[in-house]
């Protein structure tokens, strides 16, 4: 049974392109041009995953509202935001919308497919509730579960998005070594990533760690180059 993906995007060309790409990757796709129709569709049948554009026709924050409504219908539904601006990510984070990931346009469809697959894998792992220890590694207080793509710090789970998980995982896999910006840009699996975008991700990641442990300082900035995990 193929997974059902809902794509909410007001631009028909982009919408159809996403739909085509996702269909090609074997997903079942439903598309909606605006919030109202999407909501009507969701009430009919919930998708397995939703890709939301933030600006929907006449509603600048239509995606956010839709996300909230979707979250009220299902706690664990993976949601991917498509944004045109980096600050939208901050907004998402600030509104605590529990989005699973976000992508800045222009969207690389290849990466989008990877992301969707990864998220489905996480969903599967969560539902299976099986922990295979070989997929888990520890580094001091940090524990990375590659199976469920989840991370705990001092045994407390962090609510990281997929991209944030990838970044932490990438740094922690080579502790003490500098992960350059170029490297981290690839890790994010997005087409257009600036250094500021990486800095933004790291800032948000640090904040999430600091919510658990205010003394957290394991992510070190190597100015002008990148970041490294201090073991």
């Amino acid at each position: 049974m193929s997974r059902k993906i809902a794509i909410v995007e007001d631009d028909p060309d982009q919408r159809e392109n996403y739909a085509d790409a996702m269909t090609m990757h074997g997903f079942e796709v439903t598309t909606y041009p605006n919030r109202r129709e999407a909501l009507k569709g969701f009430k009919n049948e919930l998708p397995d995953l939703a890709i939301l554009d933030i600006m929907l026709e006449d509603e600048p924050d239509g995606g956010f509202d839709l996300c909230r409504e979707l979250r009220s219908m299902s706690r664990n539904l993976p949601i991917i935001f498509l944004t045109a601006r980096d600050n939208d990510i901050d907004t998402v984070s600030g509104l605590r919308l529990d989005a699973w990931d976000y992508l800045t346009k222009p969207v690389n469809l290849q990466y989008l497919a990877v992301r969707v697959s990864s998220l489905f894998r996480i969903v599967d792992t969560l539902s299976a509730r099986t922990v295979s220890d070989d997929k888990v590694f520890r580094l001091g207080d940090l524990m990375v579960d590659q199976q469920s793509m989840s991370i705990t710090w001092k045994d407390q789970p962090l609510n990281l998005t997929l991209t944030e998980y990838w970044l932490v995982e990438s740094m922690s896999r080579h502790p003490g070594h500098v992960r350059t910006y170029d490297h981290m840009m690839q890790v994010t699996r997005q087409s257009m990533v600036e250094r500021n975008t990486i800095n933004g991700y790291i800032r948000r990641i640090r904040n999430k760690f600091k919510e658990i442990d205010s003394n957290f300082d394991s992510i070190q900035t190597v100015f002008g180059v990148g970041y490294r995990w201090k073991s």
Partner: protein
Amino acid sequence: MIRVSIRYKLLLVILTLLLIPWMGYQYVREMKSFALQGQEEALLLTAGAIATVLHDRPELFSPEKSGPAVDSEIGDLQVMRLDHPLTMDGKLDDWGQLAQNTGHYSVPRLLKNPDNNESDLSFNHVLGSWGRYLYALFIVQDDVVTYRDTSYRRLDNSDHLRIYLRDENDKMTRYAVVAAKPGRMDVYAMDEDWRYPLTGDPIYSIVSYFRRLDNGYAIELRMPGSMVSGDARLAIAIADVDDTKERKLKTVLGTSAAKNTTDLGRVLIPSPEIDRILHGLDKPGTRIWIIDQNKYVRALVGDLSTSQYEASKLSGSNMKTLQLWMNKLLDPIFRLILNPPVAEFKDLPDDTRERNEAVIYQVLEGKPATDRRPSIDKKAELLMAAHPIFNNDKIMGAVIVERSSNNVVALQNQLLQNLIAVTVIVFALVGAALMTFAWRLTRRIRRLSKASGHAINPEGRLRVEHGLPDTKAGDEIGDLSRSISDMLTRLAHYTRYLERMPDTLAHELNNPLNVVNSSLENLGTQHPDIAQSKYMSRARNGVNRLGSLLASLTEAGNLEEALETEHHEKFNLNKMLAMFIEGYQESHPKFKQGFITQLPEHQVILEGSPDHIAQMMDKLLDNAMDFCVPDQPVSFSLSVWQNQAIIKVMNIGRTLPEGMEERLFDPMISLRRTGESRSHLGMGLHIVRLIANAHGGTAGARNNEAGNGVVFEIRLPLA
């Protein structure tokens, strides 16, 4: 352009206030002349009033006949008014001052000198009147004094005094006054030849006394005033006999030189009636003269110098404390400007017999006249008014009223003093008010000018925290402030719009770009042969370039928002830069010539966002590397000066064109030549400035001293 501040301009305008005291001075001067004129008129009125009292009272001028003197040989006898009766004792002391000045009053005239011989005879005389009597004193110089020999009946054979008297009925009487010895003299009515007395009885109404002096003798004489009343005429002569044996009359010397002994002189007695009238008119500070037709002074009352008392009274009256205080303060100024009225001055003496001024001639022709003359010692100015006295349309004499202008001068001075005091006060108040106003005005204008100059930061953004002053003021400056404020707001909106433009544009372009991108991807996936085509790769390349352009367009906008919300932390800039340059060198292995780094030993603590400082350094070094000539390293230094961290990045290479130093940091300004491999929108240095400004610092660029490169200098305040 000559810069004259409003303050000085207003000060110049205030100077025109000086016209007020000038105006006041002119006014006071005019007032003085008015006052003088008024006083002259008052004096003329007084003179006229006195004259009216004296009109048609010829007896006042008795015993004189009206009309001019026909013969100057006739010696009119001027009689002085005495203030006490005299004793007939031949002593001169009760004559007082008059006895010393006898010569002044008389010029003896030779009446008879039969032998024509040298005369040793001369005399001085003075006449006085008191009460009903007429007094006369004769001081005679005579080498031989011959007393009367009573054995002779003839009386002209000794020294004697002759009285020629013609009464108002033209009846001629002659009296000889003879002395047999010093002491009381005998008086006889004489015949025409002065030889024998008419009767043997002496005349007792005339009392006379003889006293020997060293070189002659003195005769005192008293006769009733009634003898010379009316138009009576009088002459007195001294007859001299030197030879006691022959007793021959040698010389006769008289007060009248008339050949015809009936042409006698007038007796000019100061009229007691006039005096009485005048005394009623006596006013302090005023002298009233009555002169007759011959310009002889007939009466005089009053004293000029008392007017000083009035002046002081005038200046002392109605003075308020403030005025007194002001006067004290301004005394030096007053003394500089004003001539205080003279307290003491000398004028014609009281015993002046004759007045001769032009005004006298005028008044004696029948016209009232006024004049001013200086006092005798020229210390004061006197006002004169003269009015003729008529008797049946004939001019009998004139009244002259004199008064010093002292009180007018005092009045003028007082007015000027008040004027100066008021002017000073008004000047000070108005000046202070205007200066305060000017000061406030200029301060407001300068504040507004400063505020509007600072209202827009170098990026053209309105600094809202610096609201313009005076926007609530209801005057023109308030209007100006509001319109500038309005203008600035609009400008800020426009600037904001321009700044948002790249962001908005990027936004709008992103969606079609995304369409192209995703379409190309899908095309490649569905048609793998096309995916290998070189056109496909070019299209992707183009899309990527477009994407990076759009990203750099939005970078500045995103950065600004990030900077506003960024959490600032304290960090060691020195260490951070060391790390940064190390990492930067590692990540740019192609830049072989490397960097010359100069960092201080000590910590340089800054408060801010290290990520953004790194971003700024990144842009600066990128820029320096791009413009650096091959094989030349980029210099990089940090120093601390005046509580500021100064980061310098220098590269050898193309210098900045003139005027670009500031503009370089504006968005979308690039000096890169078109066609260079990387896509640039000139946002890099704009971001540098944004970050520097967000840290309270500045960014600047200039050509190096050698003129072969460019130095970028970032100044950041230390924590």
